């Protein structure tokens, strides 16, 4: 009765599917959240009668063999890095990346994390930090008496200082790009970490070849599409039910077998 175990792998897979979908829906309003998708693959097959085996001494070949699968497993949960829509906030320290690239964030342990969530704040010393207070590389400090700050598409930060007529360049945002964005590890808090699978980052100014441009006063919203998530949820629920139907049917079949005289 392999069918019981096979159906169990099916139920586990659909459970994971629902978990991924619910995480997407939960992060509907998370800045720069990238939706995820669970990818499944079939398990090993048992060759009970191999394809192409000889069925007679005259060399007749078996046209179709008997191959029985053993269920399903999760192959990957991957992020779909499609651009989210731009939401105008008019906050001068909200920065959205239009195109490829990540902001680099200095973590308290000295490592670098990467994020596309550009809703930044100022620290007590006037430095541009993330919502968690981590410094955004390469570290941009606004002078004390700044009245207005402008960030242009190529990431230059210009501060308008009280009493001066021309804005002054105080820093330059830099972006990092990876060969395999899907290979980045998620740390939570909108932060991602470099892994051997992601490859090492190349840094560059926004707007340079291979990097997106910055848009001041905007945030990138999540790229979750509620309609498709709900549809996927319904499909996953039905698939779960069908696998559970297999289990109950196989159970009643075994009951039948025990009633044999």
């Amino acid at each position, binding site marked *: 009765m392999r069918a019981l175990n096979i159906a169990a792998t099916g139920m586990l897979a659909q459970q994971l599917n629902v978990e991924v979908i619910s995480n997407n829906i939960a992060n509907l309003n998370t800045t720069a959240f990238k939706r995820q998708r669970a990818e499944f693959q079939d398990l090993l*097959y048992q060759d*009970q009668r191999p394809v192409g085996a000889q069925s007679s001494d005259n060399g007749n070949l078996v*046209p*179709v063999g*008997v191959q029985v699968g053993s269920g399903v497993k999760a192959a990957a949960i991957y992020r779909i890095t499609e651009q989210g829509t731009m939401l105008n906030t008019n906050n001068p320290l909200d920065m959205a990346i239009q195109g490829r690239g990540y902001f680099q964030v200095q973590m308290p342990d000295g490592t670098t994390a990467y994020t596309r969530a550009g809703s930044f704040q100022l620290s007590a010393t006037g430095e541009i930090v993330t919502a968690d207070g981590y410094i955004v590389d390469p570290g941009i400090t606004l002078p004390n008496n700044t009245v207005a700050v402008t960030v242009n598409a190529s990431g230059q930060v210009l501060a308008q200082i009280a009493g001066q007529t021309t804005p002054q360049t105080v820093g330059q945002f830099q972006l990092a790009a990876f*060969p395999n964005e899907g290979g980045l590890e998620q740390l939570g808090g909108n932060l991602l970490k470099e892994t*051997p699978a992601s490859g090492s980052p190349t840094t560059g100014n926004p707007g340079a070849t291979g990097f997106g441009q910055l848009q001041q006063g905007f945030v990138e919203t999540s790229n979750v599409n509620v309609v498709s998530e709900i549809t996927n949820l319904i499909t996953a629920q039905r698939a779960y039910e069908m696998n559970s139907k297999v289990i109950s049917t196989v159970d009643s079949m075994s009951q039948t077998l025990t009633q*044999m005289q």
Partner: protein
Amino acid sequence: MNDASSVALSAQLAVLHQTDVIANNLANLSTTGFKAQHVAFTQYLSQTSDGTPISYVQEAGTARDPSEGPITQTSNPLDIAIRGDGYFTIQTPLGERFTRNGHFQLDADRQIVTSQGYPVLSDNGSPVVIPDGSGEITIGADGSVSTNQGSVSKIGIVSFPDQQAMTETAGGLYTTAQVPQPATDAKLMQGSIEGSNVEPIIEITRLLSAERNVDYAKTFINAEATQVSNAIDRLGKTV
């Protein structure tokens, strides 16, 4: 056990096996590029001691349903669905394998790889490497890969004279002794993925009929057993 019961038993064994295949189909309802399998049965002829032919049930094979699964849009630039008859060629440590599962990604060396990390081969048999610093990747219907830096390579799509003669290994990868030929009527769709072609209604119907068939065979075997024990009773009385 007499012949009648063993014929019914062969039916039960066949149906239990069919249930395993149905369970695998339903477990793979959400598996990208999965092809449903169906069991075909055949007769196994034998003779009783007086020469009357009797036929047992035996499995002939599990045939794959080659029909195309539903195409779902994912908007992931490296999700590629094949429309029509065709397979991607994958370089695995065990040699070339073929798949219709077009969920790919870039690895750290900028090669297009499967979710197991095996490179996808181009039409001339080499891995497809995206140059550093490229922007969006565009994949044409014929498999040609290009970026903003120009044309890169062409993903190979192959087909085989007999799809049923391919053996499935795990992970949607197929192996075969046939020589792959360039596919003539396959088109790629970027940003989409081919879902599993399992039809839940058909599978559930088959499952229910399998359940009934096991039940019928049980009833038959039980009736046969009663008959035999009655016979023994009666014959015992006449002596």
